[in-house]
């Protein structure tokens, strides 16, 4: 079996090449324990050659998750060959990664991509000279037109079979080369001969991960440290700067000789011209608003809503559930079995699958925005606002989408590259009230606030405030600190969307949701169905007519006291909150059932008087806050699980949301009591304590800053 790794910068056409090489023969997963996608596949026509797609990276530094994954794979898994894909239109920066890959001692092919564009422009790249200067094979390809891609793969196979390792280049000034040579000699006993250059350069850069990995003696590291420090003094620069400048210096020299441009430097390309309008100081925001409106309108209220309503009401509601229950009854199935299958399984899973068409439409549009190159402009335009709360400019899209439905909102967070920003976005996105939470708002606004529109408006303000407060608080916690997200982002050239890539990525996202999120939803729906359908009636275990006598009601009674400080200690409120987990609009129908109505309107008009008797305006508002902010529905939790790719993080996210919701409701209710009625109690003290803690968490200085101020150079080398 031959393993070939595909390595290259982001936006260099790597995905297109990977799809072209493997066809439909792919396996998509995650790298163990992280949210970074892992793809591998079989080379078309070769059953014994696997292609491993590595994350798009700019360098092999130890600072970004993607880069650490890529270099970990290259060093530990030792692929038989590397195909280094290069965007020829951006060759200078792309070759920077190449200079690092060459040091790994792995056979390598340079695949110069987008050569069709180069030809169209009339530019010429001297590939023979490039091959000579970089000491490895060079193949011109166009991944989009499938030109030369098989030749590149054949070349890689050939190199893998002959084990032709590229000779490391002498990139740096003689003085530096000499020091690197000395380090190579020092570490020679610890490393394989072909890799010594790589380790020596990394040790020169004071790469702590490599020091740990090699497990060098303190005396050895001290010796190397002294050598490096001497060079740093001589060059009046730090080691990392010396190395990067050396690499880019070498590349600039080569580029000067091999790239011949037809047009004078500074000529604007089509992409430049588009960008002048799209990110124009005046036009950028209106254009942005228009595009976002289109995305939202088409996926959430237009086509998406139409399809979703149809799937939910007609397909699952009438066709599947209706026919199934009729069929099961006629077949003489037990009543409970029919209930389980129709209400529990079809109802639960249907609620989730109903989102799928809407989600696919949304993903389709997001994929287009990504493929065209607009997504990074979104970050460029929105960064200023979002980075204040520790989020990325790209968090805007998930939040916008979440105002329709949290599930695709969470899934949309996948366009955020930075792991920290992505996790934070996933955790806060569902605070934005989604479409299904609006009936809860309408219910209480109608029952206790004369249908005031202010209540709905305030729901959105609460959601946005929750995002902002959480962003600032979380940013300062240990889990998110210490890994500052540099916003040094490439703005790739615009290009026409490529249908295969878009459809494939849409399908990957959609299907992964169905499979992974589906299981958790199925399970929880079944459990909840049992809880609310069965109970002890007159000492006998049986299926209950309504929820009043169910196990869920008993459970509600047990946990109701927890909500007493929030003003809704009645068991109905607890039960309604729990059934809200299946889908938020269930809160309304559950109240209907609990007050003895078989069916209620979407805003629950029939039960307004019952609610008005059970709630005060204040406790109603507190209940609303809690249900808007607490754990989202199972479908959204499933999506969180899918995106976090980690059970602990999912639990943390859901726990955080519930805790946050509780604290917020507590503060509002208790202070409300105090100010409106002058009522003072132990709860007021608790609320005051919570508020003080919240304010402390909000305004305390970020702990990471103190740590960052330590001079890296002064940290003991043999730490």
């Amino acid at each position, binding site marked *: 079996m031959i393993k070939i790794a595909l390595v290259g910068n982001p936006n260099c056409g790597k995905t297109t090449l990977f799809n072209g090489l493997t066809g439909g023969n792919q396996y998509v997963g995650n790298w163990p324990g992280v949210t970074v996608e892992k793809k591998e596949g079989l080379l078309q026509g070769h059953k014994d050659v696997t292609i491993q797609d590595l994350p798009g990276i700019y*360098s092999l530094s130890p600072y970004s998750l993607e880069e650490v994954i890529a270099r970990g794979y290259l060093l530990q898994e030792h692929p038989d060959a590397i195909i280094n894909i290069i965007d020829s239109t951006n060759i200078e920066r792309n070759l920077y990664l190449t200079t690092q890959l060459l040091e790994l001692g792995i056979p390598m092919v340079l695949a110069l991509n987008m050569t069709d564009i180069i030809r169209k422009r009339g530019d010429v790249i001297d590939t023979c000279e490039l091959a000579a200067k970089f000491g490895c094979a060079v193949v011109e390809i166009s991944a989009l037109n499938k030109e030369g891609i098989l030749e590149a793969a054949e070349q890689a196979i050939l190199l893998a079979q002959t084990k032709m390792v590229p000779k490391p280049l002498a990139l740096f000034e003689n003085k530096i080369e000499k020091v690197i040579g000395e380090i190579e000699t020092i570490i020679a006993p610890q490393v394989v001969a072909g890799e010594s250059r790589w380790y020596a350069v990394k040790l020169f850069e004071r790469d702590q991960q490599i020091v740990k990995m090699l497990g060098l003696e303190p005396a050895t590291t001290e010796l190397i440290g002294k050598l490096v420090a001497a060079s740093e003094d001589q060059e009046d620069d730090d080691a990392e700067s010396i190395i990067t400048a050396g690499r880019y210096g070498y590349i600039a020299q080569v580029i000067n000789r091999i790239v011949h441009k037809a047009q004078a430097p500074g000529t604007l390309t089509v992409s430049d011209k588009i960008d002048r309008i799209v990110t124009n100081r005046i036009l950028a925001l209106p254009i942005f608003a228009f595009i976002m409106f289109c995305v939202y309108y088409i996926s959430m209220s237009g086509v998406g809503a139409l399809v979703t309503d149809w799937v939910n009401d007609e397909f699952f509601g009438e066709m599947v559930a209706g026919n199934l229950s009729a069929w099961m009854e006629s077949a003489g199935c037990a009543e409970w079995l029919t209930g389980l299958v129709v209400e529990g399984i079809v109802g639960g899973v249907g609620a989730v699958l109903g989102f799928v068409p809407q989600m696919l439409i949304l993903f389709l549009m997001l994929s287009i925005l990504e493929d065209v190159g607009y997504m*990074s402009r979104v970050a*460029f335009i*929105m*960064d200023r606002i979002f980075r204040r709360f520790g989020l990325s400019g790209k968090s805007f899209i998930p939040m916008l989408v979440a105002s329709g439905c949290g599930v695709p909102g969470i899934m949309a967070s996948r366009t955020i590259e930075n792991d920290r920003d992505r996790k934070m976005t996933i955790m806060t996105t569902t605070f934005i009230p989604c479409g299904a939470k609006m009936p809860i708002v309408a219910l209480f606004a109608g029952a206790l606030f004369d249908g005031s529109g202010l209540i709905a408006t305030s729901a959105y303000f609460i959601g946005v405030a929750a995002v902002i407060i959480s962003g600032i608080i979380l940013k300062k916690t240990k889990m998110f600190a210490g890994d500052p997200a540099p916003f040094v982002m490439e703005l790739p050239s615009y290009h026409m969307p490529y249908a295969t890539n878009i459809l494939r990525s849409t399908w990957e996202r959609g299907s992964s949701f169905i499979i992974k999120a589906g299981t958790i939803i199925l399970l929880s729906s079944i459990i909840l169905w049992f809880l609310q359908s069965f109970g002890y009636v007159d000492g006998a275990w049986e299926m209950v007519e309504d929820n009043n006598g169910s196990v869920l009601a008993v459970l509600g009674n047990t946990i109701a006291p927890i909500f007493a400080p929030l003003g809704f200690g009645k068991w109905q409120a607890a039960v309604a909150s729990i059934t809200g987990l299946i889908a938020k609009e269930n809160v309304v129908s559950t109240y209907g059932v609990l007050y003895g109505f078989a069916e209620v309107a979407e805003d629950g008009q029939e039960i307004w008087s019952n609610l008005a008797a059970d709630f005060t305006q204040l406790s109603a508002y507190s209940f609303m806050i809690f249900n808007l902010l607490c754990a989202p529905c199972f479908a959204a939790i499933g999506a969180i699980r899918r995106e976090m790719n980690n059970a602990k993080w999912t639990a943390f996210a859901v726990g955080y949301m519930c805790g946050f919701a509780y604290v917020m409701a507590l503060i509002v209710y208790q202070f409300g009591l105090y100010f409106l009625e002058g009522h003072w109690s132990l709860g007021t003290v608790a609320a005051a304590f919570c508020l003080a803690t919240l304010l402390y968490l909000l305004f305390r200085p970020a702990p990471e800053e103190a740590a960052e101020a330590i001079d890296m150079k002064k940290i003991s080398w043999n730490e």
Partner: protein
Amino acid sequence: MRTLRDGQIGETVTVVKLHGRGPIKRRIMDMGITKGVTILIRKVAPLGDPVELNVRGYELSLRKADAEMIEIQ
């Protein structure tokens, strides 16, 4: 000391030195902003931050706070 933050839109500048340390500095260098390179300051985002640069033949965006680490001529 003049930094990239002080540069005007449309101006082409040369990098003299990079200050600061750690991951952000490394990232800036990895993206091609090293000693001696010329940078065209293309534009500022509509809300005033970040800035868009043209460096080594491609477009790069950078926050103004990070641009302060880059000393220019």
